[in-house]
């Protein structure tokens, strides 16, 4: 009985694999070429760039903006 979920999972695998109805068509290949077009890394960085920027801004709001212009010790 314990093996039943695993067997059911195995039975479902082929249907999941064939769920993409266009992956093996010309349209599917066009999409793959468009996504993995040799600029995947730079596109991913561009798409995801607002998030680290947002984290930095949120950290600045939470912790306060670092005082880059802290007055140095006056020389006597």
């Amino acid at each position: 009985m314990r093996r039943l979920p695993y067997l059911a999972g195995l039975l479902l695998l082929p249907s999941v694999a064939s769920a993409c109805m266009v992956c093996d068509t010309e349209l599917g290949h066009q999409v793959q070429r468009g996504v993995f077009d040799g600029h995947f890394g730079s596109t991913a960085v561009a798409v995801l760039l607002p998030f680290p920027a947002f984290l930095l801004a949120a950290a600045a709001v939470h912790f306060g903006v670092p005082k880059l212009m802290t007055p140095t010790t006056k020389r006597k």
Partner: protein
Amino acid sequence: MGGFVDGILFHQILQLHGMLSAKFPKTTIANIEINMFWDGMFHALTWTMTAIGLALLWKAGRRLEVPWLGKVFVGALFLGWGLFNLIEGIIDHYLLNLHHVYEAQGQSIYDLLFLISGVIFIAAGLMAIRTQRNVTAVSPR
């Protein structure tokens, strides 16, 4: 939360733009699917940010000095939403030109309105938080 408003309302329901609709105009099925892939990446990071926000909220809930008030909570939500609109608007709409709010018009007044909404939300959020900062809150902790 602001990222989900953008992604769900503008990308999916109204379909005004996609993540890379300036580079891949949504005029063919292939381009629509490419945009859908990058929309998914965007939503995945938005989900991660929301999870981080929930973790921080959980942590803040244990601190007695944090005013546990609805107005502060809503103010913080608007502050985050405004920050998102401002940052995403500047980077994606102006610096990188990945997409524009109303893609059919390219860079337009709608991009500017998006930025202005960010500034207004930030100001409203900060005001809501600051007016309640010194109020002694009934804490659930």
